[in-house]
């Protein structure tokens, strides 16, 4: 690990241990941060107005939303991590795409992405993006 990165991480860890209340109250809202991440990462996609906000609201309602989780998210914010460095961010972005009609529209970037509810086989009819439901056998070419 590079020295600068180590110092940053060590500093953040110490901050978590010593001043979590201040970090908690000073940092911007997690939801706003998460929406920013989505809009920044998928700048080239047409996100339906308000869809990222509604997704993020649902996402945090459905996952552990305790103080520890909040602090971890805010640490992610202060370290300016991206999805290659943070599983937390990767999951957020991945499940955003899975929760929209992006895959139903076969990843057509020209189409608007509409949020259809959190991806879950038990709660929504959104299909597995890899599956025959989107790509029927007749569309799979012979090698």
């Amino acid at each position: 690990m590079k020295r600068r990165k180590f110092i940053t991480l060590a500093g953040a860890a110490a901050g978590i241990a010593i001043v979590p209340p201040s970090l908690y109250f000073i940092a911007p809202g997690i939801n706003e941060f998460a929406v920013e991440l989505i809009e920044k990462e998928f700048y080239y996609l047409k996100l339906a107005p308000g869809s990222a906000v509604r997704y993020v609201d649902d996402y945090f309602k459905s996952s552990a939303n305790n103080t520890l989780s909040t602090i971890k998210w805010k640490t992610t914010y202060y370290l300016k991590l991206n999805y290659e460095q943070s599983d937390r961010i990767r999951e957020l972005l991945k499940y955003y795409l899975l929760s929209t009609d992006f895959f139903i529209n076969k990843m057509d970037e020209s189409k608007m992405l509409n949020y259809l509810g959190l991806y879950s086989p038990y709660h929504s009819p959104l299909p597995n993006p890899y599956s025959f439901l989107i790509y029927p056998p007749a569309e799979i070419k012979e090698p």
Partner: protein
Amino acid sequence: MKYDHYDLVVVGTGFASSFFLKKYLAKTKGEKKILVLEKGYFYPQAERLKVKKGEYSSDQKHDLPWQDAILNVNKEKEWPFSTGYGGSSNCWWGCTPRFMPNDFKMQSKYGIAQDWPVDYNDLEQYYGEAENIMSVSGPDDTPFPKKGKYPLPPHAFTLVDKIMHKTYGNKYISQPGARASRSITHRNGCMAFSTCETCPVNAKFTIENSNMQVYEDPRVELLYGAQVYHLEMVNNLVQKVLFQQDGKERSVKGEVVVLGANPFFNANILLQSGDKNPLTGRGFGEQLGMQVLIYLDNMKNVGGSTWVNANGYMLYDGDHRKEFAACLIEANNAPYDIRLERGKYLNMASFRMVFEDLPLNSNYITTSNNPFIPEVHFKDRSAYTLKAVENMKQKLPGILSCLPVERLKFLPPASHEGHIIGGTRMSNHQKDGVVDQHLVHHQYRNLFVLGAGAFTTFGPSNPTLTLSALSLFAADKTF
């Protein structure tokens, strides 16, 4: 309980017991008194789905966490299973490849561990029977010999699968699975949701949707909440089965007794009952599984129609098994393995590499202070298995050279494969095992000990089909 003496007393209602009973009932005509003692309760699929949707079900109290049912000494090694009506049919993922013929002959072919006292040919008919009962979907051409077709057509290949199949022929096939490829009488067609534990569309075979008519048979009496903990032995025969129900001590006499719980509980009951066989509870384990993410260049891996879409046998059988373990490849169809780079979202294949392990006696099941709770000691993976992992890492790039691979990412070994194997191993002689070729205890000759606990060696293939076939075989040969 209607009687105090039964012709047959069966413990458990999972695969092992249900398939045994299926054959027993078919072969024994006329009046028979059969008692089935189930530790848990009936928790219907429809109620499980309600809970998954976040709704309340009055049955959810019956969902006993596996962590509370055993004392698991090594917390890093997990052993998920399900108790209650249907046993682990309520949490399995429906993978039903047969074992390969040489899996039964590890000593004579490769000088490893022991041969089973049965071989592939002994089981072939029963494999077919079990596949019919489960309505397995599968291809015509398989790497293991097979008479007849699978009941349902195979699941659809992805493009990756098609390329691999074209390259490797019947060493890369659509996985035989008990996830229906189209709707049938009691099950819907698989929708590839990849949450098979509780299938959202009831496509997976379970004892509940099996239509086996075993527990509806008027000769069978089923008691729920009956926790068996002791067998009373007289002159090397089981005379009484002791159990607790609703906090009360109860017992019942049986002419023949069948232990069809999972290997932890079967071993625990035997040890509680004074079984002195040094191998009882010893040498249990399971396969080692690890995921490999295959990043593809300009190729979408789409079109799959179930959870494990294919099986690869390129690292399975051969002389290498003299030195290191066989590996079965599972091509997964996981929705959560998507990429985030622009335009490459579905350019990913996800393979699970499943390695056989050996029955090491340093891994063992024993009793605890609580007669209902076995203590589980899992310490070691064999060097035989770990060497196979290293070999796989070297060989896999070559195996995948028919695909446009950008890079591979090997994930750490998984905490479990969802299998519990060994602990009451099968052998020709008492000194080498606990049960004989018909799953009858070497010492207690009116006692069957069923299930994957009886496997002499583990093999890399999923155990459920083989343990179900063994149950059919044992009942057919005995009654």
